[in-house]
């Protein structure tokens, strides 16, 4: 087997590199820059049952070593995803994780059920969304809520389920265990940290939504420590995400216990970063005479 193959348990990927949800759309734009099928997989923008307009602008800004965003899950809804986005992406020959979001448990169930018979690598359930039933606290903060949501989705959808966890919790191993118990096949760790910026000239928050999600190299140490913790707490594979910008970062996440990684913000500074990480990782493994498989979790021993 090639050194760079990544084993997600429910599937093997040609390499462990994929884009992070929301930073890559449905891949159309980036497909003008490189062939999508050189990636291990593609993770789509979040899909909600109905179209969502998202938050008022400004929606993105820069912070030291990071990016703040408050897109607000703008998307064209399930129907457009099924009829317009997915068929195109399915023609690209790359495994697909569709990111699913919602404001109620039913939202997740509805999207998962509708996607259940599609040819996909799996669904990625984004549990960082504000839960309207629970006063806007996100789904991902409570182990029981996570358990219940994942098991309900599990019942209606035969696809592999990857559960994406929010870092804005006291102990991330609790929702991680809840997801595992609910039947998740893998976990993505982490989504963005809550953050904000203020414009000292206007004396107002920079983002239209006041707060946003912090991503980028700034959060890498936090993401890495959460991957480390979660990898010890569960026995399903972990997909590491947060601040990856160079091949050494990929290796750090693998060593911490991630079976694969997602790269979001750093590709804004360098739109060719994803294909470069694939080839840099190939060279790194070649030079160090080792494989992705050997690296996964190796820093724990």
């Amino acid at each position, binding site marked *: 087997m090639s050194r760079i193959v990544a084993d997600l348990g429910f599937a093997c990927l040609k390499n462990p590199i994929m884009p992070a949800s929301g930073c890559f759309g449905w*891949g159309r734009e980036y497909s003008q820059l490189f062939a999508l099928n050189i990636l291990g997989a593609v993770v789509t923008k979040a899909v909600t049952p109905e179209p969502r307009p998202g938050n008022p602008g400004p*929606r993105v800004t*820069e912070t030291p070593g990071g990016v703040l965003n408050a897109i607000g899950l703008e998307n064209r809804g399930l129907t457009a995803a099924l009829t317009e986005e997915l068929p195109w992406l399915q023609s690209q020959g790359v495994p697909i994780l569709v990111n699913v979001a919602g404001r109620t448990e039913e939202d997740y169930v509805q999207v998962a059920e509708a996607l259940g018979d599609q040819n996909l690598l799996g669904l990625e359930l984004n549990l960082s969304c504000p839960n309207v039933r629970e006063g806007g606290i996100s789904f991902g903060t409570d182990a029981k809520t996570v358990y219940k949501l994942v098991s309900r989705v599990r019942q209606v959808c035969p696809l592999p389920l990857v559960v994406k966890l929010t870092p804005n919790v006291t102990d991330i191993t609790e929702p991680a265990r809840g997801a595992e118990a609910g039947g998740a096949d893998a976990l993505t760790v982490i989504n963005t940290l809550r953050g904000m910026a203020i414009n000292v000239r206007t004396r107002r928050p920079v983002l239209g939504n006041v707060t946003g999600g912090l991503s980028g190299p700034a959060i890498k140490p936090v993401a890495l420590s959460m991957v480390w913790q979660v990898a010890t707490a569960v026995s399903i594979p972990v997909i590491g995400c947060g601040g990856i910008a160079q091949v050494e970062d990929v290796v750090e996440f693998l060593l911490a216990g991630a079976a694969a990684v997602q790269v979001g913000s750093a590709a804004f500074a360098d739109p060719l970063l994803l294909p470069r990480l694939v080839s840099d990782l190939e060279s790194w493994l070649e030079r160090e005479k080792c494989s992705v498989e050997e690296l996964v979790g190796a820093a724990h021993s």
Partner: protein
Amino acid sequence: MRERKAVLLAHETLTEDTFRIVLHAPEIAAGVEGGQFVHLQVPGFSLRRPFTVADADAETITLIIRRQGRGTAALEQVKPGSRLAFLGPLGNGFRPLPGQGLLLGGGIGTAALILLARRLGSCTLVMGGRSSGELWLDQVHLPPSVVIQYASDDGSQGFAGNLVQYARKNLKPGMWVAACGPRRMLAGLQELLRQRKIPGQFALEERMACGLGACRGCTCDTVKGNALVCKDGPVFAAEEVVFS
């Protein structure tokens, strides 16, 4: 549209806070349209910075940049001979309409109109600002068929007043308008164009992450709902934009 690296050939100061850089980019220089932009990497920063291709000849493109925050300040320090990465040309440029073009640039927004003026050949290009010290259009070489005018709030150069007042006075039936500048100026122009039933196009600005249409960071409100400044714009039909 491709990812490219270009050598910075020249660096010139235009006013206290505005400078011009010339990049060697023969692959895009001939084809780029007025109003299209590049997404430029500033080394050390998490996000790229969008800049209109202000001008172009066979081999080079020119960016005219106003120092705004840390990114543009860092860009001002980049030395000739350095290579800068950028993605471009991006977005949709201006689509010339029949009739005489009146091009209205508020401050740095004027950068978005120069290449259009050059390609139109014959038109009127007006730069507006607070006072003469901010107006740098005399440092741009355009053919004599492009009529250059100025407007200044304090009357220190050209028309005394802002560009909406200028347009109110000078807009004639049969003209069309291309404009770029502060939102308040564009909102005022939109109202005027509506009243006079004159067609126009506006180049908008929004903060961007991907610059490509993938992240939905740069949406603006239009009569058709959300649109992406980077991909659907930056140039929009004047009547489509919703200013709130």
